[in-house]
């Protein structure tokens, strides 16, 4: 199949970018979107042009490295990561717009590559459990009820790809932050830092250039891991509870 691609090209963080049109031929419907871009890049390299830069790593949909906005949708038309999106979901002759995540907190590094270290700063503020080092604890030392374990796991699935921020009209990181807050706050291991975690992580989130939540729900529709919108409500509840408990930001 043949496609017309309009790809955002930008040589560096401070240079102006523009949509550039490429005619790509000989695409197999079994290719992933990234393999299709590899295919384009091979042709670009052979022609002596600069290949399109994009982030990728595992290509199994579990690492969260890849991500681009395809036809205005984060990760494209299917609810999966870009690496797991296959060309069979496009029609021969389609024109496909490919853009980087757009958010002040995610500055473009080059072409489709954005800097997502703002997420790392949120995680660094409280997205962990402080445990004493030493021998591994016995597996049954801390009982976790099955529904709680399932809830925690549902939120632990977040791969930090940034699709929620890219899809949100406000460039808000609420879904990402809430995934980690809920994941750790529902578990007994996370209980000692329950209040400081949510206060510090929301504080770190507000310190980046993310917008606020207007409950549009676009994040949860774009999330390739299905983090539910209700986790934002849970984080809001945790935040208000921690604030009222007097745990003003440390």
């Amino acid at each position: 199949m043949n496609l017309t691609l309009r790809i955002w090209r930008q040589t560096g963080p401070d240079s102006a970018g523009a949509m550039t049109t490429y005619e790509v031929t000989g695409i197999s419907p079994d290719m992933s979107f990234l393999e299709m871009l590899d295919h384009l890049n091979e042709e670009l390299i052979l022609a002596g042009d600069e290949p399109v830069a994009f982030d990728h790593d595992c290509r199994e949909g579990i690492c969260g490295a890849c991500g681009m906005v395809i036809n205005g949708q984060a990760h494209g038309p299917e609810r999966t990561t870009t690496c797991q999106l296959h060309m069979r979901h496009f029609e021969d002759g389609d024109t496909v717009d490919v853009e980087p995540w757009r958010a002040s907190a995610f500055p473009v590094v080059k072409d489709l590559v954005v800097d997502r270290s703002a997420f790392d700063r949120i995680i660094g503020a409280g997205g962990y459990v402080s445990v004493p080092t030493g021998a591994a604890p016995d597996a049954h030392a801390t009982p976790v009820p099955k529904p709680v374990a399932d809830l925690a796991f549902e939120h632990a699935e977040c791969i930090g790809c940034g699709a929620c921020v890219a899809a949100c009209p406000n460039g808000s990181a609420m879904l990402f932050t809430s995934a980690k807050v809920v994941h750790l706050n529902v578990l007994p291991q996370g209980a000692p830092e329950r209040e400081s975690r949510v206060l510090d992580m929301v504080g770190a989130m507000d310190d980046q250039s993310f917008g606020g939540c207007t409950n549009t729900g676009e994040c949860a529709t774009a999330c390739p891991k299905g983090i539910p919108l209700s986790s934002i409500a849970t984080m809001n509840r945790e935040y208000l509870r921690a604030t009222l408990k007097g745990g003003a930001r440390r």
Partner: protein
Amino acid sequence: MALATRTERPPSLIGTVWHSTVGKKAVMAVTGLIMLAYLVAHMMGNLKVFFGAGEFNHYGHWIRTVGEPFLHREWFLWAARVALSASVVLHGVAAFQLSRLDRAARPEKYRRKRHRASYATRTMRWGGVILALFIVWHILDLTTLTVNPNAQQGRPYENLVASFDRPAVTAFYIVAMLALGLHIRHGFWSAAQTLGANSARRDRALKFVANALAALLTCGFLAPPLGVLTGVVS
């Protein structure tokens, strides 16, 4: 060496809430719910217009005497006015500040964007502006009677009919009430979400209540002007 203890004063609760996006949204949610509760009472009061000038005017005068003899005449009315004005201002200021932040967080638009959010969700900001303008007009029209040329102090029923005898006023009123319905449709559910009262299990019920409240208030508020328009109220 002794370890230093934490002695600095922690930031105040109000400051923490107002300076965080989550806290500011909670302020919007609470003020929004205060205004929503008022609107339900206001709408029910309005419907008395269908029971004639006597009952409606009696109700209008009773509002001034609520709480007597414990409260002085009009104290309750002024307390409500202060609380509602504070709510409107806090709601609007928070919305303005958050919107500025939101716009700055997404400076570059996508070339081809498919809207997945509902119409009500996407019109919250401009709908809110319409409602703010409407509130100003509404107070000038039916409370202070400044822009109601045929109005007389102390005769709310006659003033209401005189106001809606002007087609442009009725049209503006209808637009504002439709905006109100849309605002509540997203706003009520959104407030539940912001205050952490929502969950996957309650989501559908809350959306149903939001839609029901929106429909009820819109219809209830549209009834008096449509009554005047059709001559049922005159």
